[in-house]
């Protein structure tokens, strides 16, 4: 891999995000239009038909695929592609958008991530029983598999996890587009009904509908859109063996994150993540996922997360604030939208537009998704221009 190939060649000049939630009255078209036109306006684009040369969509369960976005935005006679990569779907769509600009093929492209799980009629994830061995449990059951061993080895408890939920609920109250705006306590988390041990209800991200959009352009053109554009320093995707059958898995952290971080840090030239990253949005589908991610991303040593959680290292006022908008915990997790929503938040942070949750002098921001069993991780590192 040529770690320098795409660094800082692409700029984000517009971001948009619809309000995430149980959007009963909104269709995918409504959410896509809302997010994309906010991003156009953010970039100062009033003629998207002329400026947007290609569209990269991310959706994990679209009803109509690429046409859903093309028809909503009436963007025809140009490439429209759909990317899927589990929970890293939005991040991977962004990644292809970056490549298409960095290689010089297009000047300006649109990335749209969306999903509408609340049209399925079920609360929580549905369990597809199409085979006999694929799904012995629900996603909570898959992501819980590190808990027993991690707790045993490092002495962490459900209370350490609960503090993550409390932090993210708090941050979510400060984000206008979040779904949940409610402070909770550690006791609320511990007393909630069990979903899959050790995860109670508040340890799990909600299901929600949402869409988010980003306008990308070549660095040289960025100033024609806005002065405070944001540079794409690194994008990464890495797959790892299914942890449920991986013969060398240790149940103490997720390999996909470790692998993707290696790529992203090499691209961005990051040697000490806790020092070099100012703000991070990480995949908190379950509280333990966020805890393990602190360690897998090198924000702290393996096993040390609980001390840092207690010390507030990752709180808004901490040394390295994580999930400043409340994360999946507060926004819910419309799979294809989530990665793009994280980029939206990081761009606001880097442009000093994040209001009461603004991290002072944020110059470098990281986003992270992990998905599947989990087997895949997507990351981005963005920098203030």
């Amino acid at each position, binding site marked *: 891999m040529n770690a320098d190939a795409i660094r800082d060649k692409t700029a984000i000049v517009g971001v948009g995000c619809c309000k995430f939630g149980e959007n009963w009255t909104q269709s995918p078209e409504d959410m896509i239009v809302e997010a994309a036109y906010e991003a156009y306006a953010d970039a100062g684009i009033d003629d998207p038909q002329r400026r947007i040369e290609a569209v990269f969509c991310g959706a994990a369960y679209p009803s109509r695929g690429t046409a859903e976005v093309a028809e909503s935005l009436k963007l025809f006679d140009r490439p429209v592609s759909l990317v899927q990569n589990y929970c890293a779907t939005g991040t991977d769509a962004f990644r292809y958008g970056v490549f298409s600009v960095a290689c010089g093929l297009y000047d300006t492209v649109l990335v749209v991530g969306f999903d509408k799980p609340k049209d399925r009629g079920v609360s*929580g994830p549905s*369990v597809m*029983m*199409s*085979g*006999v*061995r694929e799904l*012995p*449990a*629900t996603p*909570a*059951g*898959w992501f*819980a*598999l*590190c*808990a*027993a*061993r991690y707790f*045993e080895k490092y002495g962490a408890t459900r209370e350490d996890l609960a503090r993550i939920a409390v932090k993210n609920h708090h941050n979510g109250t400060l984000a206008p587009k979040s779904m949940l705006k409610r402070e909770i306590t550690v006791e609320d988390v511990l007393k909630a*009904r*069990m*979903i*899959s*041990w*050790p995860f109670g209800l508040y340890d799990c991200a909600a299901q929600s509908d949402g869409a988010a959009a980003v306008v990308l352009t070549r660095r040289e053109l960025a100033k024609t859109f806005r002065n405070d554009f944001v540079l794409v320093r690194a994008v990464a995707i890495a797959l790892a*063996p299914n*942890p*449920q*059958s*991986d*013969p*060398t*898995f240790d*149940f103490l952290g997720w390999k996909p994150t470790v692998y993707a971080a290696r790529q992203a840090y090499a691209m961005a030239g990051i040697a000490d993540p806790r020092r070099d990253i100012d703000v991070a949005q990480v995949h908190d589908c379950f509280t333990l996922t966020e805890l393990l991610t602190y360690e897998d991303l090198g924000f702290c040593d393996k096993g040390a997360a609980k001390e840092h959680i207690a010390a507030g290292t990752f709180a808004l006022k901490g040394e390295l604030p994580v999930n400043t908008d409340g994360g999946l915990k507060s926004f819910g997790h419309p799979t294809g939208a989530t990665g793009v929503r994280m980029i939206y938040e990081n761009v606001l942070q880097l442009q000093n537009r994040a209001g009461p949750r603004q991290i002072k002098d944020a110059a470098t921001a990281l986003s992270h998704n992990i998905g599947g069993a989990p087997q895949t991780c997507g990351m981005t590192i963005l920098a203030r221009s």
Partner: protein
Amino acid sequence: MIGICSYGAYVPATRLPLALIGGARGEGGPEKAVASYDEDAITMGVTAAVECLRGFDRTAVDAVFVGSTTLPYHEKLAASIVAKALDLRRDVATADYGGSLRAGASALRGALDAVTAGTARSALVVASDCRLAAPRSPLERSIGDGAAAFLVGDSRCIAAYEALHAVADEILDVWRAAGDAFVHTWEERFVLEHGHRSVLIEALRGLFQQTGLGPADFSRAALYAPDAASHQAAARAAGLAADRVQPALFGRLGNTGAAFAPMLFVGALEEARPGERLLFASYGDGAEASAWRATAEIEKLGRRRALGWHLGRRRAIGSYATYLRPRHLEATEHDVRQAPGISATVHFRERDSDLSFRGAHCRRCSAEHFPPQRVCYRCHARDDFESVRLSDRQGRLLSWTLDHFFPTPEPPLAAGVVEIEGGARVYLQLTDVTSDELRCELPVEFVFRRIHEVGGKPNYFWKATPLRDMRSEPQ
């Protein structure tokens, strides 16, 4: 010499305290063994057969005969599923015996006939039943679920076959017509007087007459009976001393239908000493009685879980609804059976792994994988594997969770990653486990179970269960 070379039995761990049926609480009184939500006649039969074949070469089995009144398919063979789960040879003979409470005995007779005729040298017999009576009916209190298995062969028999006498009888005493959900019976006094009592005795007297033996010649007798009183009455009428009759286990096991007399026969074999003569009598649309003689081989048979072990392992279920729910006797909003179901082509491609639980052993680096891979996870060699059976190995639980969200009749569902001896790792559901037993490194073994019923049919796979000590009977 032709006879029985090995035996096995299976009783589900779950017991329904009969008091729960009437709405009362508590246990300690009479109970019956009931299949768990993931068990049926096939899974119970497979587990009994696994015990029966313990220490025997599975590739030597030439035939599988399954006797049951409650096989899950009307059209589709149970014996083929049993043979596949046991990973038997492809040229094994397979047949189901059904339609009668005598189906287990008929399957045993079929095996004897096959070995006698020389069409098989080693024939596996599986008798298994989980009958359904109308909720809160008298019959519901007396019937239970269970299975027995015998290996019939022409050498090294533990019990030599001596003689058999059968009677065919046409009577409407117990029946279940096509489409009926529950077993029907005619009025009890008629059924006992003209059905069980008289016909079973007729078969026993025929056997005595044929062999010149009398009741006093038998050390142990395994007799079918629909209830405890009939059991005593039949033994008395046959002239069998009470201490020579295998206890009928009403209030502990229940009448396990086509598997009942075979299970009691397994109980007799467990205790039999060389030279003892054994009596086996089964009833259903007629009756048949057979005489057997234990040989010196019986003391050489390795330990296996049979009736005694299984009766010692029990877990009372907490509510009558827990019994009703998996039997679809409690209304629910969603019926999982109406989901589209699994693809027959996927089932076809995956049957070696899903039913026989075969994994892949890398010839280059010895890594093992389940399901089998084309490219080795460890050394990345391509297509250099040999197929290995994992079902009869042990494993250890690497990590686990209790999933309260997974749709199962008895939440929460225990699931975890198991490392099987040899290194293959599989994410499996756990069954017959309590939440306080779950811990990392828990030793486990594997059992064949129903994984779900989507598509309106049973879909089978293997589950992990805590490794139970075979020598001591659990309490």
